[in-house]
């Protein structure tokens, strides 16, 4: 459902093209636009109350085939028990998973839940199904829906009320966001990844820097990224406050999508690719704002604080609140350092680490696991280390190339797919006071368990921390360096 209308004249951005093609009713001063939603992804945490609303009002799901569900947040990451049951952490987790199974059945929605070969973290699973396609509008009751923008889809997180709106009408009421171009110049050095890039971008613009905007990532360093890298980048657009992240589709996108279960086949595929090629921003199109980042000197990044903008190069030192630009910034930094129990001025390298988590919708894909394995190969971990594939498809592919063996031989736990220690809903959690280098996307206080302290980094940096028992520079540990 792309390229149906050409509402605005002249050169348009990728965002404008996708937006225009989905306007059912244009916005006016009185009412927001009615925007059609092509794909609605769903998980167990943010959907139950939406179905309750449908039942209370006696409503049906308008287009059940446009919703695709999985389970990920409340699911255990330990294997099924010999008696066939799942080792849920508690009865509430189990009830939530049972609820989405019932809702999917009652309303005719395709669910890939526990035990299904496709089950996984919703933002890993959607692209793997080939469900996420260029030019689509994609929503999910989950802020990291931004991930799907890597395909040139307008993808954003919604609340549970809006999940209900999409179920009932396949539409949302939306005011058009502004556009923000993030131009990434230069070339990433070896050992520096998309995760480092996005942490650097957020450190530059701040956690609220993208509020009210859809961010499009442009420039040579973005074009050079793999699809996995682009997903990592768009995934964290929300951590810069943006509604959505976008990368224009190109051959890399089409190659990645080809042959996926829901991707068009045969002549339909050729027609789709021809349509998708018209999506990239036209020459001369204007964004509301532009920010430029040069990455030629970028190093692996790591966060030291309690929001994702509080990041520094892994070779850097903990900032001193005394040098903050104003009183509010000083207070924010002081409270973060107090929570993290870190000392201003001290290098972050060598900081003791208790747990390492490799996984999540940010960095739980095959390429991420390969990066972590490169560092762990032939070494032993010195901390508790959880490696959690983003989905069963990723897990299977990783096992086919023997990555699981590398992790196991290093002493890491090779777990079943799910959100796991990204948000600690399923029992995989930190103890109060523990430090964790995590490849996830949020280092908020208590995110990985009450009192837990999260340092966000790339899979390579996380693996380096695992084998060192402390924050380490992965570039010194990779073969041939």
């Amino acid at each position, binding site marked *: 459902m792309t390229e149906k209308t050409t509402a605005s004249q002249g050169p348009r951005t990728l965002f404008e093209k996708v937006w225009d093609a989905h306007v059912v009713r244009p916005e006016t001063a009185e009412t*927001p636009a009615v925007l059609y939603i092509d794909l609605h992804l769903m998980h167990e945490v943010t959907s139950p109350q939406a179905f309750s609303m449908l039942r209370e009002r006696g409503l049906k799901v308008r287009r059940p085939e446009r919703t695709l569900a999985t389970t990920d947040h409340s699911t255990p990451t330990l294997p099924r028990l010999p008696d066939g049951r799942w080792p849920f952490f508690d009865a509430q987790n189990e009830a939530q998973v049972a609820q989405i199974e019932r809702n999917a059945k009652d309303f005719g929605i395709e669910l890939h839940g526990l035990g299904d070969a496709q089950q996984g973290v919703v933002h890993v699973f959607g692209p793997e199904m080939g469900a996420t396609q260029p030019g689509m509008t994609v929503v999910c009751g989950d802020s990291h829906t931004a991930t799907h923008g890597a395909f040139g889809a307008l993808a954003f997180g919604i609340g549970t*009320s809006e999940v209900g709106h999409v179920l009932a009408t396949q539409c949302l009421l939306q*005011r058009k966001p502004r556009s923000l171009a993030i131009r990434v110049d230069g070339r990433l050095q070896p050992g520096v990844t998309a995760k480092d890039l996005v942490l650097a971008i957020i450190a530059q613009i701040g956690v609220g820097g993208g509020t009210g905007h859809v961010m499009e990532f442009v420039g040579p360093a973005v074009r050079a990224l793999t699809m996995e890298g682009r997903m990592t980048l768009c995934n964290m657009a929300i951590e810069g406050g943006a509604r959505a992240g976008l990368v224009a589709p190109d051959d890399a996108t089409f190659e990645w999508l080809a042959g996926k279960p829901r991707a068009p086949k045969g002549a339909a595929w050729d027609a789709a690719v021809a349509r998708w090629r018209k999506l990239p921003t036209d020459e001369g199109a204007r964004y509301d704002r532009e920010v430029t980042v040069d990455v030629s000197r970028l190093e692996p990044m790591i966060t030291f604080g309690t929001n994702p903008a509080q990041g520094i190069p892994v070779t850097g030192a903990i900032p001193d609140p005394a040098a903050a630009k104003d009183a509010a910034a000083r207070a924010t930094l002081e409270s973060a350092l107090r929570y993290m129990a870190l000392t201003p001025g001290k290098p972050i390298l060598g900081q003791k680490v208790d747990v390492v988590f490799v996984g999540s919708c940010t960095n739980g894909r095959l390429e991420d696991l390969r990066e972590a394995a490169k560092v762990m190969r032939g070494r032993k971990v010195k901390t508790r280390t959880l490696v959690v594939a983003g989905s069963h498809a990723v897990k299977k592919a990783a096992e086919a190339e023997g990555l699981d063996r590398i992790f196991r031989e290093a002493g890491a736990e090779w777990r079943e797919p799910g959100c796991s220690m990204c948000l600690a809903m399923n029992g995989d959690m930190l103890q109060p006071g523990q430090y964790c280098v995590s490849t996830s996307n949020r280092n908020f206080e208590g995110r990985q368990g009450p009192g837990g302290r999260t340092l966000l980094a790339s899979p390579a940096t996380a693996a380096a921390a695992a084998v060192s028992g402390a924050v380490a520079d992965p570039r010194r540990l990779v073969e041939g360096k």
Partner: protein
Amino acid sequence: MEPIRVIETRTVVIPRENVDTDQIIPGRFLKVTDKKGLGKGLFSDWRYDADGKPRPDFVLNRPEAQGCRVLVAGDNFGCGSSREHAPWALVDYGFQAVVSTRIADIFRNNALKNGLIPIVLEPAAVAKLVAAPGASVRIDLGAQSVTLPDGSVATFPIDGFAKYCLMNGVDELGFLLSQDEAIAKFEARG
């Protein structure tokens, strides 16, 4: 939803920047399948210590905070996840409005659907509120204004349609459902 016109109440101030949704309602409270009772988990990790005892120094645990229906916070309130549990918890606790210099997009959308007014004011106006915790304020949704502790009046932006819904106690779904014909036409274009 109850229609909202004017709120007259005292403020609770949490002067921190970037109060994220994991602080408003931590992940472990998201295992519920309905909306009720989430107020108990509101700011749980700031309100209670590891043994579940109230921390006396946290503002919501002070006697003067009881019954206050407006929360004033530092810049970028509600950043983070899309969990509607965050406004559900605030509303269940008793809040009717949140004031900041910037409010995260998804949180703002969610708040509007639950009778919680997201109010963005100029930094100078928020600074006046932060400097006077517990001050009495008057919020007039129709006029889109807040009367500040010094008697001056600050105005705030709000989407006209959302304002209509709040003032009349109706939700957006009715309007969307009424678009059935337009939606069907759009779908038919394939």
